[in-house]
């Protein structure tokens, strides 16, 4: 597909919606539309606003329009041996850069390299008045004005329509090595945490079904030294393909009619007493639970452990809605005021991240 700039059309559409108070549902590839619902009926389709604006490999900076397919960007970066280090999940062939940043999802490398927001350098957006605004830029260090660009990451389009995003990219590691061994859940959590406190080039960890899998990334000298220290020769070396499958939820674990919960916890939290099948990644901080246990009970037990739970994919027996966990009352008040500051008419993806009113 060729690059297209539909700024003017999008700008006009948002301005018209602002004037008439028509809520808009922002979409492009629809790969992450399962994550929360907006009450808006009118679609604002970004997929026509696409193309790489600039890519300076020597400066580690890529700028592209929001509708650019993620796969296209990854191919372009790979040509220069670079990558999006937060390893974003696609969740479908239509995934775009805009949706990736708006949903703020990150993959297995996140705890070791950073999450989506960590790599955002600048954005061009339309706020809820249809004003075309530019925040941040294409430089690594920039403290002029509030960091509105990073605020857009994970805001699900509720503060502004993402039009263009500048990202920091990183070199691909010279070598990646995936090792696996047996470990109980509690042993795995302990190991993941203690390894992360040592100078080891860890780039992903996963535990499921008494099996601990880890990835080492870096110069050959570093990965082989780390393998030696971890007694890696006593571990099984498996294909690096494990990680894209984990990232895309195509491992057999995820193929289930049960509810899929994303449980976020302080990384060292021991295994929780909740029935279901667990998959633990991000050094223990992000855990998946396949379970038909009562949602309120899950949320309560997770909250008690200092974390939060979100129904990520609804199974056949789901009684609650998929979507972000609720906010406390004072936080909700701040969120509504901030939303009002960007989108006074409340037309951008209303209700997608928190109840509108």
């Amino acid at each position, binding site marked *: 597909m060729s690059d297209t700039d539909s700024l003017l059309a999008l700008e006009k559409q948002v301005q018209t919606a602002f004037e008439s108070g028509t809520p808009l549902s922002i979409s492009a590839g629809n790969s992450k539309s399962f994550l929360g619902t907006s009450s808006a009926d009118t679609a604002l389709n970004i997929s026509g606003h696409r193309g790489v604006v600039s890519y*300076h*490999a*020597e*400066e580690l900076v890529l700028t592209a329009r929001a509708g650019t397919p993620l796969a296209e960007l990854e191919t372009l970066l790979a040509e*220069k*041996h670079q990558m999006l280090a937060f390893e974003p999940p696609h969740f479908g062939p239509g995934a775009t850069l805009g949706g990736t940043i708006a949903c*703020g999802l990150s993959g297995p490398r996140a705890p070791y390299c950073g*999450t989506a*927001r*960590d790599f955002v350098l600048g954005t061009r957006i339309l*706020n809820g008045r249809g*004003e075309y*605004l*530019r925040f941040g*830029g294409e*430089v*690594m*260090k*920039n*403290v*002029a*004005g*509030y*960091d*509105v660009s990073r*605020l857009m*990451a994970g805001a699900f389009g509720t*503060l502004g329509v993402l039009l263009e995003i500048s990202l920091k990219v990183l*070199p691909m590691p010279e070598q990646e090595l995936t090792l696996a061994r047996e470990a109980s859940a509690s042993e795995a959590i302990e190991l993941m*945490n203690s390894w992360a*406190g*040592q*100078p*080891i080039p860890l780039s992903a960890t996963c535990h499921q079904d008494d099996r601990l899998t880890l990835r080492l990334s*870096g110069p*050959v*000298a*570093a990965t*082989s*030294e780390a393998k030696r220290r971890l007694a890696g020769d006593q571990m099984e070396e498996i294909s690096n393909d494990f990680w894209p499958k984990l990232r895309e939820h195509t491992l057999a674990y995820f193929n289930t009619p049960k509810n899929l919960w994303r449980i*976020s*916890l*302080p990384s*060292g939290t021991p295994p929780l007493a909740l029935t279901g099948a667990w998959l633990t990644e*991000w050094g223990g*901080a992000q855990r998946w639970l396949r379970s038909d246990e009562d949602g309120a009970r899950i949320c309560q037990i997770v909250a008690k452990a200092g*974390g*939060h739970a*979100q129904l990520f994919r609804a199974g056949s027996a789901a009684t609650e809605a998929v979507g*972000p*966990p*609720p906010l406390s009352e*004072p*936080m909700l008040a*701040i969120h509504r*005021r*901030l939303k009002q*500051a960007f989108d006074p008419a409340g037309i951008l993806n209303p209700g997608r*991240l*928190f109840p509108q009113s």
Partner: protein
Amino acid sequence: MNLTAEKNCTWNPTAADRQHFLTELGQLLPADSVLSDPETLAPYECDGLSVYRRLPLAVVLPETVEQIQAIMRLCARLKVPVVARGAGTGLSGGALPLADGILLSLAKFTHILELNPLERWARVEPGVRNIAISEAVAAHGLYYAPDPSSQIACTIGGNVAENSGGVHCLKYGLTVHNILAIGIITAEGEHISIGGLAPNSPGYDLLALFTGSEGMLGIIIDVTVKLLPKPEYAQVLLAGFPSLGAAGTAVGRIIAQGIIPAGLEMMDQAATQAAEDFVHAGYPTDAVAILLCELDGVEAEVNAQTGTVREILESCGANHLQTAVDEAERMRLWAGRKAAFPAVGRISPDYYCMDGTIPRRHLAEVLERISRLSEKYSLPVVNVFHAGDGNLHPLILFDANREGELAQAEALGGEILEVCVEMGGTITGEHGVGIEKLNQMCVQFPEPELRQFHAVKNAFDANSILNPGKAVPTLHRCAEFGAMHIHRGKLPFPELERF
């Protein structure tokens, strides 16, 4: 600069109002925690940007979170402006007091509250010094990565407020990348928690928004920082180049090769000479530019990368190349860079430090234009550069005792920052806008963006009592500045009245 231009206008007290306010303040805090006579206020009249000085109505030094809440409730009720201050090492006047406001010092909040070596985080009070965190966790083989040059004095609360960087931030990130959570007292005195130990915090990324917000959105009362394992081994290379362009090319090639150095610093000849004269680091003073490149990791990895970097530096025309033979030499090579600012302080009565960031590919052109501006103003400029991330620190040399030279230095600095914006960069990489770069904010941001910033501020601080007048200029200020400063023949802010 006209300091009264940004005066807060929500509270216009009479002498009796002031007295009444001080009395109420005195009821909230022990007597020695409220300073109000000019002698005791004097140490607080400026921060690290000492050319701007002003006494506040009072300085308060609370010791508990409850006291901060009580102070904020009182100030919210009377609409008294509040300027928060950590160690006062900021370089943009962000902690400059307001005449009819209070200065809220967090100097008594110096405790490390919690440390979890296994999960690798520490929760600390805002007045804890940056380096004290790394010292406290060193026994666990951990450290806190951001290392601003003022790290022995600056505090973590201020680091969050400014999103501080340091020489290692190319590889390890800025403050925003290295914190997990903060506790905030809002403008109304409410306590809220932002972020957390668990990832994927629900809702907006307020942690990112607060980082670098220069005390405009809330008072930071605790910070949970991420801790990283200390690198096992570090090596530094020093290269001298016959031109700035060649040094710039080398930086690009190292990164394109897939190597992210832990530090990558450039100095021009004048800076190199000043540093060499001061600390005798062994720098080649005949080089037009020098590069310092630090690599860290496990020893085998560092040795392999050192070889690659040497080849790149040679192929880019380095005519002086040395690798530190031991830790003492590595420290000596860094000592010159770290002492660059004081070294410049020895060769000039005063210097004014700028903080622009540019896309690195424009380095040679920007330095050329800085050199022309330096001639135009007849003021020497010395350049120190965080080369890896494009953050430029031109130091303008002047003598404040000479009539008009400070104003000339400021005007030159302003023009340098405008060059940075024109090249697609920014007016501040790590020092913040504060009061210093308000005019340049008008150059970097058009009116709709500035209005959006004000709307964000308003969402947290409707009465504008938190550090009012800093960081984001009023539209009127930009209109007045713009009237002197017409860009490409277009009058900015055409719809605003002109005075």
